[in-house]
């Protein structure tokens, strides 16, 4: 799966989870940049990504992601394994 394809699907998941149908994601985006991205919706986002991409993150994966770009990389890595 290419980074672009991942981003495309991830955009839909983010729009759903953060309840914003026009949300656009960027590599540099962090929780501070998105309305309603708190510890609770963060958990929802993890579940959405895991369900959407059919993967499971480890705690280390989750804690290591600092922005959306790193999330995309983590997804790509899990999908490749």
């Amino acid at each position, binding site marked *: 799966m290419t980074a672009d394809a991942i981003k495309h699907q991830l955009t839909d998941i983010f729009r*759903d989870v953060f309840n914003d149908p026009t949300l656009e994601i960027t590599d540099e985006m962090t929780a501070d940049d998105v309305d309603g991205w708190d510890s609770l919706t963060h*958990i*929802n986002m993890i*579940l*959405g990504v895991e369900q959407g991409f059919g993967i499971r993150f480890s*705690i280390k994966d989750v804690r290591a992601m600092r922005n959306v770009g790193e999330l995309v990389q983590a997804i790509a890595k899990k999908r490749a394994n």
Partner: protein
Amino acid sequence: MRYEAATLDYFALLKEGKTIALPESARTIRLAILADCATQQLGTFLKTLAARNGVRLEIYEGGYDAIDLDILNPASDLYAFDPAYVIVLMTEEKLKSRLYEAADRSAFAGDTIARIRGLWQAFAERSGATLIQSTFVLPTERAFGNYELKAADSVGAIVAEINHQLAVQSREAKNVLLADVDFLAAGIGRLQWRDPRMWNMAKIPCRLDHLPALAQSLLDVLLAASGLFTKCVVLDLDNTLWGGVIGDDGLDGIQLGEFDEGEAFVGLQKFAKELKRRGVILAVVSKNDHANAILPFAEHPYMVLREDDISVFVANWENKADNIRLIQKTLNIGFDSFVFLDDNPFERNIVRTYLPDVIVPELPEDPSLYIDAIARLNLFETASYSKADLSRADQYREEAQRELTKARYGSITDYLASLDMEIRLERFSSFNLPRIAQLIQRSNQFNLMTRRYGEAACEALMHAPDAVPFTLKLGDKFGDYGLISVIVLKHDGDDLAIDEYLMSCRVLQRGVENFAMNAIFSYAARIGAKRVTGRYIPTAKNAMVKNFFGTFGFEIEADEGTAGVRWALDVDRYEPREAIMTVAVNEI
């Protein structure tokens, strides 16, 4: 349908929660959630699922792992919130931490139960609310393997013992109901249920995608306690209770027996019989000639259900929705307390279309799978169980006979006189409390105030100096109705206030209301009260008693909106009403 499994999807439910639109008049229930895990998502799901049932939940979430603090501190926010229900959700993770640190393992189960019982009692002393206590999910890791339960001091044996003791203790605790979270987790599979990552990261008690199921299960207990539960199962016959078509295949041609599909049908009948035993009314609606339909009940050696297990038996060629309407009229219970079981998709759809409140589960093609399909929906919650449940089916069958007798008499007075009714007006007693609490939960339509006092609150009324709580029991020549009405009077200065008044709809139009009002006014006169006052608090279901006080000559004193309409009548202006019955006992 209220309980469709697909609608317990995590994200679909989150989305649904953002667009809840309940009418202003929707019933509001105040719920506190106390837990030693994170509960934010759970609260959201509970609200959303409750809204599907027309209930608005107002939720107080206790602090994380602050169950004891909230309950033991009389000045806590919990009591300020004044809930009607409190969920106490305790996790096996926290229990295990305590256990691993315990100096004396042999005392651990006993100490834990003592702590939880202490919480129940402290709560009961400060609140009349019902407490819903979770069980502990059994741990998946076992240091002893299969030897775990043989070793009394193993973690698995201790948690199992605690669950067992919770059940035993809850039987005595009148303000406590159980939410069997371990049963729920085991049904899903405990390894599937758990998500240690989510526990470690966010103190979430199970896998996120199972949280909606947990919320539904907790809500099922709450709704049952508040009066919403299955009271009647309507059964189809051909290919539902037995295999084949009795009219075509004949008595020895239908499948009912000791193996294959015949055994599966026997299995469903056994479960139906168990439901009847615990107070669910069974009815039959079948497209058949009556003589054919009744034949297996009388003569088939493998039939489990017999004619006297069925309270209303309807076999004809009419539309099944119309037949269920007829049963609803005879039994006088809400359509939302009916479950309809039929193998035929056409019949299921007709009933769904015309009676959308009736619960109509999809049944799989293989009758071996009927019971599991029903089990998945958890359709048979109850918040009480008493001796009255054992004889309910008989009472309703007697009712059907009364309806037939009714047709033979010209005037209602002649008819009522022919019944030889006998009434007993008795004060609340500890013997009657379970049945009283149960009637309070079950009655929706003839219920003026819908206060839903639990057993503990009823017991408190018995000892309150200004309260006169009593019940009515009715019998007639056809049988015994048992305890059919609960009334609470309160001395209120110069007034006698009717604080609670509800009656089983089965005994409508027999003059019981007249007898009760006569008794209330003669008591008021005896204690020197100037007026009798009452209140009608509207709900979605009690419109039938909207003008109840008006029919006795009461006048409206004030309309206080959701707090209800206040009615009053001077004692010396009351005209006694006709009540054709013998008074066997009068304790006020």
